[in-house]
């Protein structure tokens, strides 16, 4: 009986080590809100460009989203520690953000953002790459599923009609930005609730 209790205490110690080390990974899930913000950004830009036919729709919406993301991220990450993993994932998304701003700002301002199929294919491929790289680093199947959805949208949009392309893009945004982002936020919230105090 005493042996069993001692074994259980030692196993508790092992579990504690594993759960604390996993905290580094859990920090990633506090970025769920950015997926939702960017999903809404895409919807606003699509709506604006469809209704207003403005070349400024994408560049302006993306610039506002970048500012919102940077400001909120700075406020949220006030006392978060730096991890190699966090820096790796952050670098992927930062490089993606810069690429999108540079590419779509230039295309928008030059008036060459005219081929809807090419636009959706490029944006989907870039998002598939970023989600795929992040998922492979984190070994996160749910995020890899998002990458697959983006890659499927890349292929699909090359062969689809205008209407089908729009629907595919809207569905991919909904699944990979809105649903995935909310899932990330719920997962983070659940972990906060489960975590009790650790005594000496």
């Amino acid at each position: 009986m005493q042996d069993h209790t001692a074994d259980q205490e030692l196993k508790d110690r092992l579990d504690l080590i594993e759960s604390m080390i996993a905290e580094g990974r859990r920090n990633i899930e506090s970025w769920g809100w950015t997926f939702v913000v960017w999903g809404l950004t895409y919807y606003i830009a699509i709506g604006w460009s469809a209704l207003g036919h403005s070349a400024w729709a994408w560049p302006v919406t993306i610039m506002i989203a970048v500012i919102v993301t940077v400001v909120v991220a700075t406020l949220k990450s006030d006392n978060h520690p730096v991890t190699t993993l966090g820096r790796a994932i952050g670098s992927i998304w930062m490089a993606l953000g810069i690429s999108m701003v540079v590419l779509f700002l230039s295309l928008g301002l030059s008036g060459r953002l005219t081929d809807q199929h090419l636009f959706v294919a490029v944006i989907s491929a870039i998002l598939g790459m970023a989600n795929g790289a992040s998922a492979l680093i984190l070994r996160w199947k749910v995020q890899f599923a998002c990458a697959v959805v983006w890659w499927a949208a890349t292929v699909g949009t090359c062969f689809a009609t205008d209407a089908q392309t729009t629907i595919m893009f809207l569905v991919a945004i909904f699944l990979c930005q809105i649903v995935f982002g909310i899932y990330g936020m719920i997962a983070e919230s659940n972990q906060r609730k489960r975590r009790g105090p650790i005594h000496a």
Partner: protein
Amino acid sequence: MPDSPELNPVVHGRLRLALLSLLSGVEEAEFTWLRAKTAATDGNLGAQLLKLEEAGYVAVEKKFVSRKPQTLYRISETGRQALTEYVQALKQLLGPAIDT
């Protein structure tokens, strides 16, 4: 029969073990972050971090950021080694019971 390994008493304390494990996964961490992750009280957390510091397992850096004091903790090589040895000793003690 081989001798049972001793568990390092400094590492074995629940909160100290949690702190070393947390610090092993990050480059450095603020006191407030460690407090949020462990949900420990300021007094208890400070006391356990001091024990780890005295054992040479963590290094402390105090600085001011935007005029606010900031205390940063970083696991030392000795601390990382102590944690690794502790895990090995735990696994050795548990033996086959580890999978049950």
